[in-house]
């Protein structure tokens, strides 16, 4: 029996708005709230709600044969809470079928794993774990790092945080001749098992789902199944990892029909079955150790050796994590939230010239025309954030000595207005 694990990733970043250097220190919000709300509402109404409903029906129809895993990023979860809480109950419904596994991640789709020190990463993992348990009633056992980023160091820190498994991209760079369809264990931390995303099958399914023309032809499905046949009988599993948005959006009806046929073909076929990664880990152990110090990753637009990135990205990252020490001791919730959102990987993706936003000479409606704009904007925001940190520190020192109204109360008040949910 060949086990197929289907994973869906859901992620929405808190996109920044234009932030000029003259606006530093003027209590301007960092986030493009209109755009964030528009995008999340769009995704919810056109994808998440209808697709969840459809999957719920499909799970009931398949009588326990269809099993799925979801990774919902911390920022997406926040946005659901702010703008579309009904999506959460929809996911809860799915979870109640018992056929769904939720995967854990970082609290804000953060790239903290690239920082020199591991403390922020571990902190983020812990935060997210608590939230996943609270909202979905499941203790996550499989860890999804941002952009499926993996190095030996990541494996070690994740194991220390209590996860027995991590999923990463089955890039040729790390696997070489090996197959992605086995469970491996990490080289320097044997406690953690590694699952590899099967690049070939995942990309093919994504390609089919994003091409309405290919969906209608029967060849597409045949091709997909012939690819599935390449999984050898002795191999225990294939990890198919997709963006959840590929199932919804434009041409949703055709996509879902296609997915339905795919599911029914697999459940009727004697050689395949759907499984959850946690079930499999009980059945199969790791075949051998594997490891790398060079980061491997997966994100839709970039190649598997994308990280650690170009000079701009490295610089922004270094400047960001220089502030870690100051943020650690602060009790201010607004600063904590901003600190987390500043770490989201999408801001750093935009500092690469190969980002799809720059394909058309910057005329796509995004706020950045090039990676340089993205860097400048990010650094301005970081500068503002660092000034706020300093002000907060000064305030804390100031407070116990004299009993009178806080000097910086005006600023704190303004910040509260940006995040009503975190009052």
């Amino acid at each position, binding site marked *: 029996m060949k086990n197929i694990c289907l994973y869906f990733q859901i992620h929405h970043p808190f996109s920044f708005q234009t932030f*000029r*250097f*003259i606006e530093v220190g003027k209590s301007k919000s960092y986030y493009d709230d209109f755009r964030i709300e528009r995008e999340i509402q769009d995704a919810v109404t056109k994808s998440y709600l209808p697709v969840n409903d459809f999957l719920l029906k499909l799970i009931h129809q398949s009588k326990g044969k269809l099993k799925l895993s979801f990774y919902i990023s911390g920022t997406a979860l926040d946005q659901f809470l702010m703008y579309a809480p009904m999506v959460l109950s929809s996911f809860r419904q799915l979870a109640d079928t018992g056929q769904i596994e939720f995967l854990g991640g970082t609290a804000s789709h953060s790239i903290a794993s690239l920082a020199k020190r591991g403390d922020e990463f571990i902190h983020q993992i812990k935060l997210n774990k608590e939230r996943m348990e609270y909202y979905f009633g499941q203790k996550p056992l499989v860890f999804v790092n941002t952009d499926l980023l993996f190095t030996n160091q990541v494996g070690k820190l994740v194991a220390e945080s209590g996860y027995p498994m991590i999923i990463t991209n089955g890039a040729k760079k790390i696997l070489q001749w090996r197959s992605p369809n086995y469970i491996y264990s990490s080289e320097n931390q044997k406690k953690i098992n590694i699952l590899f995303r099967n690049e070939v099958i995942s990309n093919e399914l994504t390609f089919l789902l994003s091409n309405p023309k290919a969906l209608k032809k029967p060849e597409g499905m045949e091709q997909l199944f012939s690819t599935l046949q390449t999984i050898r009988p002795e191999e225990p599993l294939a990890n198919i990892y997709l963006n959840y948005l590929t199932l919804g959006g434009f041409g949703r009806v055709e996509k879902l029909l296609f997915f339905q046929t795919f599911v029914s073909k697999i459940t009727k076929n004697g050689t395949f079955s759907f499984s959850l990664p946690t079930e499999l880990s009980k059945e199969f152990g790791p075949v051998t150790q594997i490891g790398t110090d060079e980061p491997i990753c997966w994100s839709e637009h970039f190649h598997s050796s994308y990280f650690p990135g170009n*000079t701009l990205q490295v*610089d922004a990252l270094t400047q960001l994590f220089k502030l870690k020490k100051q943020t650690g001791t602060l009790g201010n919730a607004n600063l904590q939230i901003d600190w987390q959102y500043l770490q989201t990987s999408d801001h750093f993706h935009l500092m690469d010239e190969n980002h799809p936003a720059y394909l058309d000479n910057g005329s796509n409606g995004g706020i950045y025309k*090039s990676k*340089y*704009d993205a860097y*400048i904007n990010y650094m301005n925001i970081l500068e503002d954030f660092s000034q706020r940190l300093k002000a907060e520190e000064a305030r804390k020192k100031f407070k116990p000595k004299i009993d009178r109204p806080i000097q910086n109360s005006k600023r704190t008040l303004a910040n509260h207005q940006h995040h009503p949910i975190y009052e």
Partner: protein
Amino acid sequence: MNVLMFGWEFPPNISGGLGTACYGIVKGLTACDDIKVTFVVPKAYGDEQPANIRLISADNVSIGSRTLLSEGCTSVTTLEVPSKLVPYLTPESFIARYQTSSEFKETSPTEVTQESIKLNFSGKYGPNLFEEINNYAIVARTIAQSNEFEVIHAHDWLTFPAAIAAKHVSGKPLVIHIHSTDFDRSGGSINPVIYDIEKQGMEEADQIITVSNLIKKRLVEQYRIPSGKITTVYNAIGPDSDGTNSEVKKRSKQKTVTFLGRITIQKGPEYFVEVARLVINQMKNVHFVMAGNGEMRNRIVELCAMYGIGDRFHFAGFLSGKEVPEVLRRSDIFIMPSVSEPFGIVPLEAMHANVPVIISLQSGVSELIRNVIKTDFWDVHAMADAVHGILKHRKLSKALISEGKIEVSKLSWELVAFQIRDVYLNSIKQAS
């Protein structure tokens, strides 16, 4: 393949990008083995030694011929036609330029050439640009009759009547090269006569080369030219432009932000002042330099005085060809906030000279290069932000410099010439 090219004077006698571009294109074409160029240039005389000019043609046309490209460019023959035409002329500026000299024109070399051309001039040689263009066309006709060529290539509207005349005489296909249109030069208030000449040239042409898609779009929209016969060929810079001997810049505390170009409405100098105001209010040790001259200069000086930033805003005046690379090399940022820029070669030179560049999205060059910061010309806040970012973050300026340099070093006039050659072949195929 022989090409009859109506072009413009080469450096150092240039007042803008047109001469540089012509020079580069001709140099690039000489690298193609199968192309021979007969290069016709108007020669503003008076400051020129008559001894330089040699009669090479019969038919009563006095034409000077000399080799301008000595280094290995044997396939170019240059014909110099005595004429008062210079690039970027408008009828008004033409009058301004020659009005004063018209008093002593009786004794000036004008008279001499008029005789040697032996054409039916009205006798009164007033400062009329269009008459001058027509005279040039008449000369062009003679040249076309007495030279062998397969294709005609003309640069910008002043040469169009000449090129059309050459086409009518020879029946050979015409390729015109648009470096700018009257919309770009006038800032919107076009001269209908110039528009007519441009449109006629475009309609007569078998193939049109534009320096950017921006101009191509303008041709389609404003001149109603079918986009099928327009090809965009971006300009380049030569390896010898400058900067080859540029030593490592000394990092001083004082930073310089430079504007370089004619101080006219289409170059957007007032936006540069706005940027300066925004930055100077926030940062110390930043100086803004505006190099160039133009009709808006006094207004800009007044604007600076009004903002009270005169102590850190400097005017460098008009720079000669040699001074340009020097000023660029001393800059920490080069800004081109052009409202309308058909191409814009100076940003490429700045990148070559290891200077981070900010350009407006309304310039043709922004279609070509990626490792610069692009903003809308009116978005002074974005531009000021970019200036601040580059000066503040060394990693950013380093990335811009190193990646920009790599990008610019991939450009060459040879590649440009190769694309132009394709256009020639197309036009010949069409004509036959």
